[in-house]
């Protein structure tokens, strides 16, 4: 019904390029997440879809027509603002009811719908208060309720969970996922929280400096990054990225250590990417090379080891029962089945 289409969208302020000639197709009913570091243009992209910002060039489609010249009110989208945008002079009830009132919903329908939305975000007891009398997280939930009270063509959510505590964030995340499946409404969702992106998204668009670096399912983004930025940005802890070269079928670090077997021909300058969970830890002498434990962290569900050989450090994820101490010597083996090679110059993935 309502796909969202960006065709060669550019947003410029003077010389500064906020979004650089990007195209993106969000399918009908799809949950698309825009993920990227602060300042990469996520909010800008979203505001252009909402009609609050005019693209410098390019076309925006919602459903089957161009909306570039449509006012925000005519685009039939519901938006959760990054800084809420609540109406300070209205009660929470009136805040949530406003989009219904202004679109001429019959009075009898408004009350049950507002109450239902308030219930979904656990706000029922605050309906008579003013926004001023709520905490940041509660305000954010009001903003969320104001969006979900209606069934628009498109949901636009700009970090709608960023101010909630960890526990509420998990419940709200599940609530949102359920809601979006249930309502079947196209959603564009902005976040810089990877877990949120991974769990909610049908597809993720990873942005950097106004450019979409990769667009794919959470699985593709995580397991098949197409460039160094995506590889380094996705995953916690961040992927180990090691400078070196490929010679005679082996990856050699800049420090000269022969680390792991790599197929494909010789290459001078490459970066090897390997995730912490693909670095295996063995007893000293039983791995490919012996390394020193630089730091040992126990997170409860697993342990993180920062290992050092020469000047190179590498992070490994180990079994939660593994006990090591600083300066212990352990054996290290990099799993050759899950390696990523990147060109040092272009930072693009080298597929071999």
């Amino acid at each position, binding site marked *: 019904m309502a796909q969202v289409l960006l065709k060669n969208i550019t947003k410029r302020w003077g010389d500064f390029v906020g979004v650089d000639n990007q195209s993106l197709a969000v399918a009908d009913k799809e949950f698309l997440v825009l993920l990227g570091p602060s300042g990469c243009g996520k909010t800008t992209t979203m505001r252009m879809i*909402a*009609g*609050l910002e005019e693209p410098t060039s390019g076309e925006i489609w919602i459903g089957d027509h161009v909306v570039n010249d449509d*006012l*925000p*009110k005519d*685009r*039939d*989208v*519901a*938006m959760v*603002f990054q*800084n*809420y*945008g*609540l*109406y*300070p*002079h209205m009660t929470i009830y009136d805040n949530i009811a*406003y*989009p219904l009132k*202004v*679109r001429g919903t019959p009075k009898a329908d408004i009350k049950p719908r507002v109450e239902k939305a308030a219930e979904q975000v656990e706000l029922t007891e605050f309906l008579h208060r003013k926004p001023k009398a709520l905490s940041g997280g509660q305000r954010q939930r009001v903003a969320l309720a*104001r969006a979900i009270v209606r069934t628009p063509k498109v949901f636009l959510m700009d970090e709608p969970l960023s101010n909630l505590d960890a526990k509420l964030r998990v419940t709200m995340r599940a609530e949102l996922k359920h809601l979006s499946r249930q309502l079947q409404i196209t959603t564009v969702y902005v976040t810089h929280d990877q877990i949120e992106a991974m769990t909610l998204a049908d597809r993720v668009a990873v942005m950097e400096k106004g450019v979409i670096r990769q667009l794919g399912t959470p699985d593709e983004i995580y397991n098949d990054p197409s460039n160094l930025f995506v590889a380094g940005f996705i995953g916690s802890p961040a992927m180990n990225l090691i400078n070196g070269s490929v010679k005679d079928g082996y990856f050699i670090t800049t420090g000269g250590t022969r680390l792991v077997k790599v197929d494909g021909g010789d290459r001078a300058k490459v970066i090897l990417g390997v995730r912490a969970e693909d670095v295996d830890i063995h007893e000293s002498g039983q791995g490919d090379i012996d390394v020193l434990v630089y730091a040992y962290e126990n997170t409860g569900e697993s342990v993180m080891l920062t290992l050092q050989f020469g000047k190179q450090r590498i992070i490994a994820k180990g079994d939660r029962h593994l006990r090591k101490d600083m300066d212990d010597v352990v054996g290290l083996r990099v799993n050759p089945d899950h390696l990523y090679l990147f060109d040092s110059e272009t930072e693009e993935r080298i597929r071999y």
Partner: protein
Amino acid sequence: MRDNKLKYILVLPAIIVVFATAVWPLIESLRLSFTVGRLTKPNFPQGYLGWENYTWAFMEEPAFWNSVEVTVLYTLITVILTTLIALGLAMLLAPGGRLRGGVQTLLILPFAMSPALIGVSFRFMFNPEFGLFDAFFGVVIPPLAEISWLSDPTLAFVVCVMADVWGWIPFLTLVLIGGLASIPQDTIEAAQVDGASSWRVFKDITLPQLVPVLAVVLILKAIFSLKTFDQIYMLTNGGPGTATQTLSHYIYFSGMKYGQIGYSASVAWVMVIPMILLTFLYARYVFQKR
């Protein structure tokens, strides 16, 4: 303790000055309002009359009621007109509005002129022989050039209102621009996305958030309109006849021209009442905790 005493000593001079220049004259005028108080006769203020000055004004003096009527009408019209026009201009000139740039600086110019000067310049502009307006109308709408604006009671009143509105728009516009700028842009954008037309955004979102500033503007302008004197004095001197005679002008004339100090003091005290009310309201809005 020492700090506490010092605090009072430091404000004492200010308190003394306020007493000598505002409170004492106020009390003295109250006392005079109960006396005969004729400047032209010996033994000023010639003994007490009780409430007679007041009852005289209310019961026996159509000129008093005329000036009350003029003042109320003048205040209502100028307050509403100035605020509406200033609000419209502010909407155009505020950040995100349709006009912007150097216009704002130009705006302040009329406010830099003293009311008396505005009065004089409007009198010249409406002069039937060499006035700007007559010259203008003479070219554009010739029939209007024949009108002698300041000799017609209604038109003279209209000219007074025009001069006042013209002089006050800039300042009030600037105040309202400030008020508009302090409204979070988010709330306006949220309403636009929620589906509100520009008019509804203004009515539901902008206006309610502008209320505190708007209240200050309305009260402030009402205070200044109520006490209008110098501009009228220079422009029409209350005329033709008493068509534009405001209370202040009436008080001044009774006291200074006819020497009826006691009587004019009592009329002045009649005017003090709405003034105190407005000042009280003003203070409440300006100093209220939000």
